[in-house]
């Protein structure tokens, strides 16, 4: 049974909403830097949390192409398939 983009996206949203500083109205289309007001360090820290939840490593060089939460979810699904 493989994990879907929707599943991953939901897990990311859940993780983000556990942080009280994150706006409540985020969705899969939210842009991580602009809509969440994350700086580069905050993005790396939050990706680390997701990595541990999903047992996957997202290389930092891949983050360059990722803008939205769904982009991140898609990248993680690909990484999990490669593993």
């Amino acid at each position, binding site marked *: 049974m493989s994990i879907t983009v929707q599943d991953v996206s939901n897990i990311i949203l859940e993780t983000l909403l556990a942080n009280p500083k994150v706006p409540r109205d985020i969705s899969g289309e939210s842009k991580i830097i602009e809509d969440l007001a994350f*700086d*580069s*360090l*905050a993005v*790396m*820290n939050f990706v*680390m949390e997701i990595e541990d939840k999903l*047992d*996957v*490593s997202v*290389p*930092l*060089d891949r983050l360059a192409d990722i803008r939205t939460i769904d982009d991140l979810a898609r990248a993680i699904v690909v990484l999990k398939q490669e*593993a």
Partner: protein
Amino acid sequence: MNIFAKFDPLRKSLEQLKAISKRNPFDVVVERPLSATTGIIEGRETLLFGTNNYLGLSQSKEARDAAAHTAQQLGVGTTGSRIANGSFALHQNLEKDLARFFNRRSCMVFSTGYQATLGMVSTLAGKDDILFLDADCHASIYDGSRMSPAQVIRFRHNDAEDLRKRLRRVGNIPGAKLVVVEGVYSMLGDIIPLKDFTEVKKEENAYLMIDEAHSFGVFGEHGRGISEQENVEADVDFIVGTFSKSLGTVGGYCVSDHPEMDLLRLCTRPYMFTASLPPEVIAATIANLKLITEHPELRQNLMNNAKRLYTSLQKAGFRTGPHISSVVSVILDEVGHAAALWNRVLELGAYVNLSLPPATPDEHPLLRASIAAAHNFEQVDQLVEIYIQAVKDTGLSLAK
């Protein structure tokens, strides 16, 4: 489109900072150093506790004399890169001295520590390789990783088990795995549990590079850093570091036993495409390296000072980092408080660093002091008094 539009968020942050801080912390000028531990700032004699001049050697007589003499004899610049037209016998002498100091086969000297880490990280890690970086590594290491075609994986700070998990997660790969860590981390002065890391490195068949920028000359019986102190030098593949802290000058190096080091001189771009260090800087560095070798009591003085500052601050109720090293930071919660405290400390006669997120771990602002062998107990006690007075004057509470 205005090419500067992308800097608007930065402009806003700077304006916010200026609104809450009387002075711009990025603009402090030491009008004149008076000694390794005092200088004139804003016209006043001020205690210097923010210089990274750990052994006070920026002002050593030996280095000044060597620099002056060498400038007279050889001039003030090499006007060229190491491989094209800028290697003097002095550069090779310093490389030999450093290799001997570290008991290593070879040494490469760079024009700054930034370029040493940038160059080594970006060149060693190729397309099929994977870099594993501690979450709190210095900007030069992260910049090197961006210059490298390798994949980059970040692991939790000082957590060898987390590194092991991430190394295992990637499994067998066609290339090599290079782990990059630091001996002492520059913001909190916390120390790596290096034995745990060398165990993981060996078990998982990875290479290990350590940046001893803040530990060289400070830790280890001979001053060779945390690798020496933890007795694991044989398991460390590459040691990089800087001349700009305990050695008191400017420049950087990498030492290693790997016989391929000389090849790296021909493919490490931050080594090849920049001018080499001027002869007077090399001569001063050689002189200060000799002082470090011959005066172990400098390290003892430094650690005595650091212990005194660290324990006095804790006793006074300040929150500090987890370990005692030449960096002693007070951890604060709000940038406004930190800025107010830092300004007041400067007005009361001591210069320390105001370190701000995102350059600090966990988004905490810090008052960062660097301790020198050249400080005396009176100066250390004075700094503690100034911190306590500044807390009173700014009406902050130290409730943990």
